[in-house]
């Protein structure tokens, strides 16, 4: 059990690390293609494409990590007005609702991947990229986000602080 947990923690951090690396890659890939262009060379089309896809992947891979860091903006209004016990109850209920939303989206993501494979869909830009290479990020990301929200729903940590305002 602890090994599985360690593995999971490792996965979450690895994804966040990849997201950070992709952000740096955005910069590097653009620098390379501008340099090539001004040397009179034709920049590799995949440089441009890796930026666009990178943006998508970094959002999806980083999102579960941001849930853990409580980094998604939320408003505290009702939670701030409630007495402590009701507040804790509501906080868990909201986290549970987030779990439900993310689970449904993870399932929809799985369905999308299945469809993309069955229809052999391609994302057509500079190349024909099999669509499921991209959409596969959905079930993974929303699945992990569901797990992270579940920690706030049943674990000791709370998502809400009880202070009124918008938190991030």
């Amino acid at each position, binding site marked *: 059990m602890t090994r599985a947990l360690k593995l999971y923690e490792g996965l979450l951090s690895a994804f966040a690390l990849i997201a950070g690396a992709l952000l740096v890659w955005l910069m590097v890939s653009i620098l390379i293609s501008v340099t090539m262009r001004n040397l*009179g060379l034709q920049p590799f089309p995949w440089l441009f494409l890796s930026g666009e896809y990178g943006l998508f992947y970094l959002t999806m891979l980083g999102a579960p990590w941001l849930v853990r860091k409580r980094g998604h903006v939320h408003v505290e209004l009702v939670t701030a007005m409630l007495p402590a016990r009701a507040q804790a109850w509501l906080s868990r209920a909201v986290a549970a609702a987030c779990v439900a939303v993310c689970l449904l989206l993870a399932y929809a993501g799985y369905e999308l991947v299945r469809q993309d494979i069955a*229809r052999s869909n*391609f994302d057509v830009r500079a190349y024909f990229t099999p669509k499921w290479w991209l959409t596969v990020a959905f079930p993974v990301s929303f699945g992990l986000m569901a797990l992270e929200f579940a920690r706030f729903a049943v674990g000791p940590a709370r998502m809400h602080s009880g202070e009124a305002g918008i938190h991030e």
Partner: protein
Amino acid sequence: EDVLSAVHAFPETLVYTQSFLDFVDKVNEAGEGVVRIEVRGGPEAIGMFQQPEAVRNGVVDMVYTPGSFYAGALPEKDALVAANVTAAEARAAGGLDLIDEIHQEKMGVKYLGWFDSGVSYNLWTVDEPMLDAEGNLDVSDWKLRGNPVYNAFFTEYLGASVIDIPTTDVYSALERGIVDATGWTQIGLLDLKWDDFVNYRIEPDFFSTDLGVIVNLDTWEGLSEEARAILTETALEHERTSAEALAELRDEEFAELEAGGMQVVTLEGEAAQNYLDAAREKTWERMRTQMEKHPMGLEHYDALIEAFYDPSKDPGS
């Protein structure tokens, strides 16, 4: 009464959307009490690249979109891109029935009609283009605004650098000299105001627009006999009239552009033929490569080329 929900790929003000809305009006008039199309909006209602999937899934019943937006599912659409005939001619040659059959089999949608055909593309440049000793276009040190439809032609044949820029940003890219030239359809430059910076139009024109109406197949088969007849007849008529209307509009726009100082540079003889051949061959090559990846393979390749390309129409012959 049968009701079909519909969306269109481009914003409402664009001339091609207006043409589709015209078709919708005709259907609703002819089909009163039998069939009605209810337009739900354009890219603000469903993203333009999601619309083909939306009609396949039945989220909407009808979509007006370029085939290029679902090139991954149906590479055969390149037959329309490389076409040099109008919809009426392609239909007479059996090409559109074949395209319909492929749509039904590969995507589960009915291909109702190819509208606004006969409009093709030009290369529009800011500076006067250089011609080499043989009269070929020499733009190898230029930066061209590209997109997946013409990048292969621009880079491999013309040897130019290509920068992908969304349509909405092309105005400022031309303004700041980020690109020296752009491909665009014969119509629409005035609406986009690119003529503020573009001064030359290169002839001959190449490619063709590939805008068509697709309908979810289950919806189509669930329609009454009468509704299907009205839709088909109206579509056939609109294929013809829209091509005529746009040809007229093109001539008007060309005249207006030329009155505003646009100059025309025409490639001659063999240079023109090579230019057109390259545009077409690159497109067919892509179609062939992508078709080979599908289970259907190259089954209809030759028939498509036969129906959508008429060699006797080229300037060299």
